[in-house]
């Protein structure tokens, strides 16, 4: 029982890091411009396919492939912002929700036409790691390290660069930022780009250990919602904590009840936290 609990928890937490990265992108965008990006899932899937294509057709190591995938994610985000989001940034929430959902449909539509919805797999194994009675694929360990690295980079960027500070300033008070000469539209675009970049990288990491289809981003998008709310919408570090919480829950719950109850608990908790503490469990504002 204890063995099972520990190994289940380890698996869950390792995965939680990667969930955290995916959610971080969503929460960053929300924090800066109060837009819930419904194109988040498809961007995650794009990250998966980007890594897959680079690996399968060009033989690029999947972890190296994440660099160009991140770049492409950034550019994709900028394009999405300029085309679909900028015009509705001050409109009611419904407009930005539906605008990003329209982007979701476009990406999924094109993705389905190009790749079909058949499952794909990156055939790249790092073997398994054994620690005592624990056995888990090395790729998950690398994924967790990758997630920590990405989080650290984001933090260094937000706190120690001019552009990063500008993002925080715009998130904090867009009008004041504009008054200080910060081009807020460009900063919004950059933030959106960074958010989708995180999603694409998360997709790339997930693709190294799970099979995926064009539609695979959807579940991670939903998980990202849960994580953002647990960690407090708009707080990137909260997303990592939320990710770990969700991963931990996914490891913990199956020890005590059938695995199929996991989503009931997850989403039940999600609604409950929204109702009781909309700022998140750690979102002490």
């Amino acid at each position, binding site marked *: 029982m204890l063995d099972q609990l520990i190994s289940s928890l380890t698996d869950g937490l390792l995965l939680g890091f990667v969930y955290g990265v995916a959610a971080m992108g969503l929460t960053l965008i929300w924090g800066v411009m109060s837009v*819930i990006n419904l194109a988040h899932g498809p961007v995650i899937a794009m990250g998966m396919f980007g890594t897959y294509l680079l690996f399968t057709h060009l033989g690029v190591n999947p972890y190296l492939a994440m660099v160009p995938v991140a770049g492409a994610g950034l550019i994709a985000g900028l394009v999405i912002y300029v085309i679909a989001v900028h015009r509705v940034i001050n409109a009611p929430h*419904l407009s930005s929700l*539906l605008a990003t959902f329209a982007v979701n*449909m476009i990406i999924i539509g094109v993705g389905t036409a190009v790749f079909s919805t058949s499952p794909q797999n990156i055939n790249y194994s790092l073997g398994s790691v054994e620690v005592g009675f624990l056995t888990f694929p090395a790729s998950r360990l690398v994924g967790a390290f990758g997630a920590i690295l990405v989080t650290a980079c984001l933090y260094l960027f937000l706190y120690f660069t001019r552009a990063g500070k500008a993002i925080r300033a715009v998130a904090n008070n867009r009008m004041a930022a504009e008054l200080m000469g910060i081009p807020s539209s460009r900063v919004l675009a950059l933030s959106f780009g960074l958010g989708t970049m995180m999603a694409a990288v998360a997709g790339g990491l997930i693709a190294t250990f799970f099979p995926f289809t064009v539609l695979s981003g959807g579940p991670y998008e939903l998980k990202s919602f849960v994580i953002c709310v647990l960690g407090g919408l708009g707080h990137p570090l909260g997303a990592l904590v939320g990710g770990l919480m969700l991963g931990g829950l996914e490891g913990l719950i199956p020890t005590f009840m059938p695995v199929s109850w996991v989503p009931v608990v997850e989403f*039940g908790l999600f*609604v409950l936290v*929204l109702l009781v503490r909309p700022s998140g469990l750690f979102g002490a504002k």
Partner: protein
Amino acid sequence: MKVWQKPGFWLPLVIVLVWGGAVLLIHQDTMRESAFVLLMAVGLASSLNILLGYTGYVSFGHIVFFGLGGYTGFYLLSEQGWPLFASAIGGGLLSAFIAGLVGLAVLRLRGAYFALATIGINEAARAFVSNFEPYGGATGMFVNFSAYQKYGGPGPALWTTFTFLWITTMVVLVASYLVKHSRFGLGLLAIREDEDAAMVMGVKAPKAKTITYVISAFFPGVIGTLYFFKNGNIEPGDAFQLHMSIEMLVMVMLGGMGTVMGPLVGAVGYQWLRGYLLTSPIFKDLHLAVAGAMLLVIILFVPAGLVGWVRNHVQRLQKVLE
């Protein structure tokens, strides 16, 4: 002027009356199937519009009421042997009841938080039903084929279901008009414009919102029962599709939210477009992308939707299109 003398009231109603009547008269299976899909879309979009259009609350997971109501109705029908009519009403009542329960709590949330909560409720409901043995768990339930014999065999049963759906759709449209044009509806509009101000002016916002939520949840429950009876089986994956929920929103937006006519036009327009794209040799593979691009154009450039746009631009039609 009495309600029935207003063109805005009878226009959508007569359209659906004539349309469904024609389908019944012509009595052709393919046509009925298509009309079923369209009428269902109209009914679902219109009931969503009662909440979305009149109070401004964006329910992303409205399909949960279609699923829960459909499941309950189906359960009453196939496991308890209730007649179709009673089962459908039963499904609707359960949806309304659930909406009343969660409404008071969830409707305190504003904007995107409310939208997220409705998504969460839908996913939680789906996961719960997958584990709920009386409803068949993950593999769902089915009607034994002999159940159709009660209605004179499968053919007549399908026609009965269609007729029932047709009537339900008209009831939705009437309800939509009545809510909009009552004192109650005025309060809702005030909530949509500025909820805090409305509260100050004496609108009992929590109660009004919950009542609206209950009304807009009832009809999807009825429609769900009819749909799954026609299908012959029900499974969690089919009953709680988030995608369908968003399609409902798109239909409302396309036609024009906050109007009675809008969801009707939007639903038919969207389904027709989808059908066209799906079967068109050029767009077949890209149907989703093309639909998405059109949605984007509407959101960015015609946020009032088709009916709203016409109302704003053609003076003469303002009285006719509500």
